[in-house]
């Protein structure tokens, strides 16, 4: 794997769902790479395919109705879409782990949190019961839960939202994974708790030399934590670049529109929010050509009929737009 230094590289991923109403192309051309120790931010609006991409990497797509119809996912040089389920089970939770948006529904309500964390340790590291319990308490301490040995005996409902998310993080990191996938980790939390959790992920990342894929709809979070950004629209990556470049000089009309439509703390009173016209398209009836063309201010005849590929722009940036160099 040392060849290209990428811990994870996703190439042309397509995950479709075959429903009664038709084929939902939830992910339809997602490409990105994550190097060791790097943080990639994946931004997009609801239904754009962010979460389905993450679940595809974990191979947790319910099949049927879902199916990964195309693409390759290289983790440490090996295409994990081609390995057996048994081999995948060893990677999942040990090498790649995931935290979810809603900590309440992703923890089991009838087991204590210590029990749930030590289960993963027993399975992946082969420690006995007592050692894995001690390790679980140690993990809880590391994620900043006070009085960890007592809190380990509590059930999820006895904890606040922020505490539960810490438990999720402790569980995800208990087996020293190399890649952490965080799917909207702070969306259900208050801003001050969100700051605590983001701060914690950053600290642990340095300590454990983690690579992180953070999925969010919040551009502010991406600006604060990510090294690189993939902007996703209608199942496709439409722009991929370093975080600084995305914010200082966005190339895709959707990225530009998104940045102009977010109210910012440092706005002047006179500043007006600009909007992207129209609605996010329904995944059953994606428009022809470029998926963004009905809402785009640069739309031309070509955009309506022919879908742009991911074009290489300057500095190794990628953009899916026919007219990006006219902006």
């Amino acid at each position, binding site marked *: 794997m040392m060849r290209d230094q990428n811990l994870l590289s996703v190439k042309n991923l397509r995950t479709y769902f075959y429903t009664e109403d038709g084929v939902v192309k939830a992910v339809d051309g997602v490409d990105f790479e994550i190097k060791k120790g790097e943080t990639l931010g994946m931004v997009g*609006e*609801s239904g754009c395919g962010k979460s389905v991409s993450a679940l595809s990497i974990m191979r947790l797509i319910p099949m049927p109705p879902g199916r990964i119809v195309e693409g390759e996912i290289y983790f440490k040089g090996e295409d994990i879409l081609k390995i057996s389920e048994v081999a995948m089970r060893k990677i999942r939770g040990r090498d790649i782990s995931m935290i979810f948006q809603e900590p309440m529904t992703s923890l089991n309500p009838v087991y204590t949190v210590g029990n749930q964390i030590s289960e993963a340790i027993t399975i992946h590291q082969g420690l006995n019961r007592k050692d894995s319990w001690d390790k679980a308490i140690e993990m809880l301490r590391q994620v900043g839960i006070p009085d960890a040995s007592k809190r380990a005996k509590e059930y999820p409902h006895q904890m*606040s939202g*922020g*505490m539960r998310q810490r438990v999720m993080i402790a569980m995800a990191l208990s087996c020293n994974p190399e890649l952490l996938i965080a799917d909207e980790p702070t969306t259900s939390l*208050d*801003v*001050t*708790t*969100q*700051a*605590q959790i983001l*701060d914690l992920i950053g600290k642990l990342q340095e300590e454990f030399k983690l690579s992180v894929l953070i999925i969010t*709809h*919040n*551009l*502010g*979070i*991406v*600006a*604060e934590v990510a090294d690189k950004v993939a902007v996703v629209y209608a199942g496709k990556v439409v722009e991929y670049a370093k*975080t*600084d470049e995305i*914010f*200082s000089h966005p190339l895709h009309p959707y990225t530009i*529109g*998104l*940045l102009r*439509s*977010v*109210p*910012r*703390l*440092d*706005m002047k*009173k006179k500043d*007006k*929010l*600009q*909007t*992207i016209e129209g*609605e*996010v398209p329904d995944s059953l009836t994606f428009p022809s050509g470029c998926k963004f063309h009905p809402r785009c201010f640069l739309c031309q005849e070509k955009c309506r009929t022919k879908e742009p590929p991911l074009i290489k722009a300057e500095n190794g940036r990628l953009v899916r737009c026919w007219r990006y160099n006219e902006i």
Partner: protein
Amino acid sequence: MKKNGYLIKVENLKKYFPIRKGVFSRVSNYVRAVDGISFSIKKGETLGLVGESGCGKTTTGKCILRLIEPTEGKVIFKDKNVGDLSNEELHEMRRNMQIIFQDPYGSLNPRMTVRDIVGRSLSVYNLVQGEKQKEKRVGELLEVVGLKKEYMRRYPHEFSGGQRQRIGIARALALNPEFVVCDEPVSALDVSIQAQVINLLKELQEKFNLTYLFISHDLSVVRYISDKVAVMYLGKIVELANWDGIYSSPLHPYTQALLSATPIPDTRVRRERIILQGDVPSPINPPSGCRFHPRCPYAKPECSQSEPELKDVGRGHYVACHLVK
């Protein structure tokens, strides 16, 4: 109402929810959701009410409209105390006070058409005679909020989140109210749709000279729409100022932490983040003295003993903190 006066004035508003226990449902304690807050809003102005979940923002909004009965305090709307009104008087008053809810899915009846949802209040107040007139008015309202007239025959499930929120806004405007409580109206919407709805609310305010109480947990959104901002923590207002004062010179440590925790979508802006310790305490047994003192980075002994008053520090900037002189 006097010229340049206040349209609405809230004085020492309190709402305690009883906790009942045991066979006889004896009241064992109270949740102090709103614990003595006062503010006023001028005609045509927007007051932004910010705070984290459970701080009492929504309860405040509902108490003002008397959708729930406040435990104590006065709400004076156009020189009348809303709390003293009889049922008939309240019915009349509600023409002027409306609310837009957070959840565009839960707040529209799925079995009613848009025409009936938006036109219901018109029939209740006998403002229209017959179906024809009702449809005409509903059509106008839909156009005002940027929807097509033809949509009135559809049901809520046929619309997207942003469109549903527009229907909710049309319903609130049907009676030409003067005052609208907007309870997290854009929190459930996608980023690109949020901006559309916020701009719509701003336009409507100018067009109809509306007065808003804008409740939100998102400081960036509040900054964009509000003239004045009140920051709430555990049922109390800790800071109140015009929008500029809150954002350029926040005085309360909680406001400072809240501002620094709100991410700015720009990598060129670098700020020191203040990370608060611990969680928001329970409103059943709020901490003694200043309610923020267990998490406050500057807490002094006096902070745990006496509760700070909300005092004027000049230019209409109010703050409740012992450390601000």
